[in-house]
C-alpha cells in the first residue's frame, strides 16, 4: 500500500465536490469525485459533523441520480396519449399560453403551484415569490402533508416551528423517547447519535409506536399503542408526573403559561382510562414517566406517527406540553427533536412555500405583504393588483391576497368542488408540479378524478412521476426535465436548522435545467421576470442562487436568516472538519465559536458573526452566543395573567425578566431608541411612515431594532412564556378525538371528531364523515386498523428510488405487514397475495408479510409504490424501458378522508380496512 494507486482514470484530473444528500432531513454530506464532468466515485463525507462519513442506503446511492438511465432528459408533451419530445422554447411557449389563458379566463387562483421540499432554499423562495407575482396563494409543498401540524403546534406553543435541538445533541440526552417516528428507517444517520447517546449515558430508550419497528428493536422500553391514541398516552404519562410531583415547578412558574388548564384535562386520564383507550399498559406508562422524570434532560422525538393525523396539531401540542412540564425545552440534551422529512422541508417551510404564509412565517396579512413588497422592491398596490380577476374591486383582490390557499392535501377538491363550496372565484384548472410525487396524498381515487379534469398539468421533475403516468390524461400534460440538486447549487436546511450549501457536481444532464433556469424562462413568458428578478442577477437564463440567498438574508428577519450569507455558508462546508462532533461548534480555525451551518436564528448581519443557535430557547447562553428565550408572539397578557417570562431570561440580558418583542415603541419606552444610528432611523422612518412606533424588529430592514435589542443582551423577538394553552387553536388544550374511521366506534360519542367547519377555501367535514362511518358500521366490514409509513430504501412516492437499481433491488415487492395470528385466521401465509380494501372505494393487491412487527388487528403498508392500480399491473402501460425497476400498489389508493383542522394535514396513519386472500 505504499504506492497508492487511485481508483479513478489515472490520466484525468480529479475534482472533489461536496454536496448534501437529497433524501432526508438529516442532511448527510455527500462527497463526489468528478472527472471530465462524470461523477465517478462517491466517498464518505468524513468531515461532516452531522453524518461523519456515514449514510443510509439512500444516501449511499445518490451517485446513481446523475447516471441512472431512467430520468427525464428532454421536454415532453402528451399528444393523444403519446409522449412527444419538444424543444424547450416550444414547451415554455405552450405552457405559458395555456396558463395565461386560464389566468385571464378564471383568475390566477385557478392554477395550483406545487413545490418541493427537495430543492434548495433559493428555489423554494423563488417559487413562493413567483406565485405571489402570478397572483395566488395556491402554492404549497410537501410540508403540508408532512410536518405542517408540527409547525402549527410548536410555533403556537413557544414561537418557532422547528426542531429545538440537533441530532448531535441527542448524545447529551439522559433519556430518549421516540413517539410516532421510526428513525432507523426514516432518519438512519440520526440513529448514530441516538444510539451513542443511549450508550454513553446508559439512557433509557423508549419507543411508543403501534409497530415494533427497527427503531423499537433498539429500545429498552417499547410501548405498543392503538394507532391514533397519542394524546391519551401522553396525558397518561403526564398524569403520573403530576401525581408524583415530578414536574419542574420552577420552570413552569417562570416559563409556561396555562399549565393548570392542562392539569385539569390530564386528571381525566387515569391509568385505567388510558389503558382502556390506548392499550398502553398502565404500569409501563408509569415507568416511562419515571424514567423521563428521573433521567433529565430527556428528549422527545416525534415524526409522522404524530403529525399525520386528524389530531396532528393537538398531538404536537400535547408532546410539547409534556416536555415543558419536565422543563426539558431550551436545554442541551432535552428538547423537542422533531425529525423533519425531506432534505429541505425545514428550509422550504421557512421560505413560505405554503398556502398560509409569505417567506419566514410572516403570514398573509397586509403587514406581511408590505414587508415583502419592500424587500422585493415592488409596490404593494401592484402586488395586490396581481390577485383575482382583472375586473375585481380592490377589496376583493385584497381579500384573496390575504386568504389562505387550497392546500396540497386537497387540491383535487379544489378541482372537483361545486362553485358554492369554494371560496375563490373559480375551480382549479391548471397545475404546475415541481418536485412532488403523485401517489403521496390520501384519497387517490378522488385525486385521479381531479387529475382527469385539469386542463393543464405541468410536471417539472427529474423523474417522470406518478402524475405523468396517469392514464386518464391524454393531452394537456407537459414534463419539463428539471435536474437534481447535484447538478445545481444552493443551500438546504436540515432538521436541526443548520443551513448547508451544496455544490454542483456535474452539469445538468441532457436537456434538463435547474429549477432556477426553468422558473426564469417561465417568468419571462408569463411577463413578470423583470420584477421577479429585480435584485437577482441572471446569467444567461440562470438566476444566481447566491443573489437569491442574499435577498432571503435581507427579508427573513423573523427567523434570523439575516446573519447567514452564501459566503459564510460556503465557508462552513469547507471547514466542516473544525466543528466538534457533539456540540457542533467550531473549536479551531477561522470559524472558531460558530455552530455548524449557522442554525437559525442567526442574528444580525453576517459581519456580526453570530454563531447560530444550536438549541432554541436556551437561556443559559447569551443571545450573541446562540442563547434564546421563548418567543413573545401572542401579546403580553391574557385574562389578567402575564404572558411574559417571570424571572427567567437569557444570560447577559439587561432586562432580567420577560419582555415583549421589540418594536420602535418598546425601544422608546426603554430609552434604547437613542442607540439607533441615523441611517437605521431613516430606514425605520421610511418603513413606518407616520406611525413609526409600529415598526417591529422583524420588519425593520435596517436591522437597527434587532441590533439594539441584542446589544442589550435581549432577544429581539421578546421573552415570553410558552403556551400550554393556545387559545387561538380549535382545541386550546389538546383533547383526544377518535380517528374518523375508528376501530373503537364505542368511544366516538365520548371523543368525537371536530365539528364540521370551513377553512382553506373548502369545507372540512371530519365530524360528518365520522358519524356516517359509525352509523354504517364500517368497523364491522373493515375490521383492521390501517397504518402506513416508510421503508429505509425508498423515499416518498418512490419515483426516484424505485428507478435506482441499487435501491430497487433491496425491496422488490409491495407488501402489507400482517400479524401472525391474523394471518393464520385468514389462512394467509407469508408471501401470499392479499387484497386490502378501504372503506372509501380503494383497494390494493399486495403480498402479505406475516410478522409480529404489527400487533393483532393492525396492518401496515409502505407508501412508496405505484405502477399497480387496484390489482392491475400497469407495467405494460409504461413506454418500454421507462418503468421504474419496481412497481407496486400505492398505499394511498386506500387512505381515506380526514384532515387536521388547523393545517388540513391528511390522515395517512389511521383508517380501517379489510384483508382478504387474493
Amino acid at each position, binding site marked *: *500500500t505504499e504506492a*497508492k*494507486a*487511485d*481508483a479513478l482514470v*489515472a490520466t484525468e484530473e480529479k475534482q472533489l465536490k461536496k454536496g448534501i444528500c437529497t433524501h432526508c432531513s438529516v442532511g448527510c454530506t455527500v462527497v463526489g469525485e468528478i472527472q471530465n464532468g462524470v461523477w465517478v*466515485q*462517491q*466517498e*464518505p463525507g468524513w468531515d461532516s459533523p452531522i453524518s461523519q*462519513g*456515514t*449514510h*443510509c*442506503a*439512500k*444516501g*449511499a*446511492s445518490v*451517485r*446513481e441520480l446523475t447516471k441512472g438511465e431512467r430520468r427525464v432528459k428532454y421536454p415532453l408533451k402528451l399528444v393523444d396519449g403519446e409522449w412527444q419530445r419538444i424543444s424547450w422554447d416550444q414547451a415554455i411557449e405552450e405552457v405559458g399560453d395555456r396558463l395565461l389563458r386560464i389566468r385571464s379566463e378564471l383568475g390566477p387562483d385557478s392554477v395550483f403551484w406545487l413545490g418541493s421540499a427537495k430543492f434548495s432554499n433559493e428555489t423554494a423562495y423563488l417559487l413562493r415569490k413567483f406565485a405571489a407575482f402570478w397572483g395566488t396563494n395556491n402554492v404549497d409543498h410537501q410540508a403540508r402533508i408532512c410536518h405542517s401540524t408540527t409547525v402549527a403546534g410548536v410555533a403556537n406553543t413557544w414561537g418557532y416551528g422547528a426542531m429545538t435541538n440537533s441530532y448531535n445533541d441527542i448524545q447529551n440526552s439522559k433519556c430518549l423517547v421516540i413517539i410516532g417516528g421510526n428513525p*432507523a*428507517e426514516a432518519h*438512519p*444517520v440520526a*440513529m*448514530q447519535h441516538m*444510539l451513542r447517546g*443511549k*450508550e*454513553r449515558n*446508559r439512557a433509557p430508550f423508549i419507543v411508543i409506536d403501534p409497530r*415494533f419497528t*427497527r*427503531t423499537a*428493536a*433498539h429500545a429498552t422500553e*417499547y410501548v405498543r399503542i392503538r394507532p391514533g391514541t397519542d394524546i391519551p398516552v401522553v396525558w397518561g404519562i403526564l398524569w403520573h408526573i403530576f401525581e408524583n410531583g415530578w414536574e419542574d415547578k420552577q420552570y413552569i412558574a417562570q416559563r409556561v403559561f396555562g399549565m393548570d388548564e392542562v392539569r385539569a384535562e390530564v386528571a381525566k386520564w387515569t391509568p385505567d382510562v388510558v389503558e382502556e383507550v390506548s392499550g398502553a399498559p398502565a404500569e409501563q406508562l408509569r415507568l416511562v414517566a419515571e424514567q423521563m422524570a428521573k433521567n433529565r434532560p430527556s428528549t422527545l422525538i416525534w415524526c409522522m406517527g404524530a403529525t399525520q393525523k386528524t389530531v396532528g396539531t393537538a398531538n404536537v401540542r400535547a408532546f410539547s406540553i409534556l416536555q415543558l412540564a419536565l422543563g426539558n425545552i431550551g436545554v442541551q440534551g432535552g428538547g423537542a427533536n422533531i425529525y423533519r422529512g425531506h432534505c429541505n422541508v425545514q428550509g422550504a417551510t421557512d421560505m413560505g412555500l405554503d398556502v398560509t404564509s409569505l417567506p419566514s412565517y410572516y403570514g398573509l396579512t397586509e403587514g406581511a405583504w408590505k414587508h415583502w413588497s419592500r424587500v422585493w422592491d415592488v409596490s404593494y398596490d401592484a402586488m395586490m393588483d396581481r390577485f383575482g380577476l382583472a375586473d375585481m374591486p380592490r377589496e376583493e383582490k385584497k381579500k384573496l391576497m390575504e386568504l389562505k390557499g387550497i392546500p396540497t392535501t386537497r387540491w383535487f377538491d379544489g378541482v372537483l368542488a361545486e362553485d358554492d363550496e369554494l371560496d375563490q372565484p373559480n375551480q382549479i384548472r391548471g397545475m404546475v408540479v415541481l418536485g412532488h410525487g403523485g401517489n403521496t396524498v390520501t384519497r387517490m381515487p378522488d385525486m385521479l378524478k381531479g387529475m382527469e379534469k385539469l386542463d393543464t398539468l405541468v410536471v417539472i421533475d427529474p423523474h417522470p412521476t406518478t402524475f405523468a403516468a396517469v392514464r386518464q390524461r391524454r393531452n394537456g400534460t407537459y414534463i419539463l426535465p428539471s435536474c437534481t440538486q447535484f447538478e445545481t447549487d444552493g443551500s438546504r436546511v436540515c432538521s436541526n436548522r443548520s443551513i448547508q450549501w451544496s455544490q454542483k457536481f456535474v452539469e445538468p444532464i441532457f436537456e434538463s435545467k435547474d429549477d432556477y433556469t426553468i422558473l426564469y424562462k417561465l417568468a419571462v413568458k408569463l411577463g413578470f421576470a423583470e420584477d421577479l428578478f429585480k435584485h437577482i442577477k441572471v446569467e444567461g437564463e440562470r438566476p444566481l442562487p447566491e443573489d437569491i440567498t442574499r435577498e432571503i438574508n435581507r427579508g427573513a428577519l423573523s427567523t434570523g436568516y439575516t446573519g447567514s450569507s452564501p459566503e459564510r455558508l460556503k465557508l462552513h462546508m469547507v471547514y466542516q472538519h473544525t466543528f466538534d462532533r457533539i456540540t457542533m461548534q467550531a473549536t479551531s480555525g477561522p470559524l472558531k465559536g460558530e455552530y455548524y451551518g449557522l442554525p437559525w436564528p442567526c442574528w444580525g448581519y453576517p459581519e456580526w458573526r453570530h454563531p447560530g443557535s444550536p438549541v432554541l430557547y436556551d437561556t443559559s447562553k447569551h443571545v450573541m452566543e446562540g442563547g434564546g428565550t421563548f418567543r413573545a408572539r401572542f401579546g403580553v397578557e391574557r385574562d389578567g395573567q402575564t404572558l411574559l417570562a417571570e424571572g427567567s431570561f437569557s444570560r447577559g440580558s439587561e432586562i432580567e425578566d420577560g419582555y415583549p418583542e421589540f418594536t420602535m415603541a418598546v425601544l422608546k419606552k426603554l430609552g434604547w431608541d437613542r442607540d439607533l444610528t441615523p441611517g437605521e432611523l431613516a430606514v425605520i422612518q421610511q418603513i413606518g411612515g407616520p406611525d413609526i412606533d409600529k415598526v417591529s424588529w422583524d420588519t425593520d430592514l435596517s436591522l437597527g431594532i434587532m441590533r439594539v435589542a441584542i446589544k442589550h443582551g435581549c432577544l429581539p423577538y421578546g421573552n415570553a412564556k410558552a403556551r400550554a394553552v393556545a387559545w387561538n387553536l380549535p382545541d386550546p388544550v389538546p383533547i383526544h378525538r377518535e380517528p374518523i374511521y375508528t376501530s373503537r366506534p364505542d368511544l366516538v360519542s365520548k371523543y368525537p371528531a371536530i365539528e364540521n367547519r370551513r377553512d382553506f377555501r373548502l369545507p372540512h367535514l371530519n365530524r360528518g364523515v365520522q358519524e356516517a362511518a359509525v352509523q354504517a358500521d364500517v368497523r364491522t366490514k373493515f375490521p383492521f386498523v390501517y397504518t402506513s409509513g416508510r421503508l*429505509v*430504501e425508498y423515499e416518498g412516492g418512490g419515483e426516484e428510488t424505485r428507478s435506482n*437499481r*441499487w*435501491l430497487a*433491488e*433491496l425491496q422488490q415487492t409491495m407488501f402489507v405487514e400482517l400479524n401472525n395470528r391474523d394471518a393464520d385466521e385468514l389462512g394467509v401465509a407469508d408471501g401470499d397475495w392479499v387484497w386490502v380494501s378501504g372503506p372509501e372505494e380503494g383497494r390494493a393487491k399486495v403480498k402479505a408479510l406475516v*410478522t*409480529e*412487527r*404489527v400487533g393483532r388487528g393492525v396492518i401496515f403498508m409502505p407508501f412508496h409504490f405505484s405502477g399497480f392500480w387496484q390489482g392491475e399491473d400497469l407495467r405494460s402501460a409504461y413506454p418500454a424501458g421507462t418503468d421504474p425497476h419496481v412497481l407496486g400498489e400505492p398505499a394511498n389508493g386506500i387512505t381515506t378522508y380526514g384532515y387536521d383542522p388547523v393545517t388540513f394535514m391528511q390522515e395517512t396513519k389511521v383508517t380501517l380496512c379489510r384483508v382478504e386472500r387474493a
Partner: protein
Amino acid sequence: MARMKFLCDSERCIECNACVTACKNEHEVPWGMNRRRVITLEDGQPGERSVSMACMHCTEPPCAAVCPVDCFYQTDDGIVLHSKDLCIGCGYCFYACPFGAPQYPQASNFGGRGKMDKCTYCAGGPEEDNSEVEYQKYGTNRIAEGKLPLCAEMCSTRSLMAGDGDVLAEIYKERVVRRGYGSGAWGWSVAYRTDQRDTFEPGRAIGTT
C-alpha cells in the same frame, strides 16, 4: 502486519442497508449479486437484531480449501481474494462458505455459473492495482488507495467496522463495557478463531491452502 477483519456490532445495526448500497455503488455490482446483505434475526420480536454480512475473510478460508482450481489467495493482511480468470464457476465455495458470501451471475451450471464474485474487502484482485481490468472484474481497489472498505466507512451507525482485528476487538469491547450489553461479534468464532472446536480447519488432511 494488520489482520483485516469485519466486525458487525449487532447492537448498533439498524438494517439501513447503507453498507449494501455503498458496495453496489463503489463496485457497480450488478443486480442480483449481493456481496453484502443484511439479515434480521427474530424480526419483529423483542430479541430482534440485524447483522450485516459479507465475506468475513476467514482465517484458513473454507472457500479456498474446497476450490477445485485453487484460485483463492490470501493477502498479507488476511484478505481472501480470488482470481476470476481461474474460477470455473463450480459453486463449491458457496457450499463451503459458512456465510453464504460467494455469488454467481448465473443460476445454471451448464457451462458453469459464471465467475464467482464476492466481497473483496475493497481490495480488487490479482491484476495491477486499480487498472481498468481490475476494476471491471473486481471493482475498485480502495485498499491500494490507502482507504478502507466503503461499506464500513459509510455504515450509518458505525455498526459495521473494518480494519485490523485487534483494533476492532478493542473498540467493540470498549463499547460493550460502556453500554453494558452486547451479543458478541457475529461470525467471529466461525471465521477467525483457530483454537476452538467450531473452527474450520480446511484441508487439514491434505495440508494445502
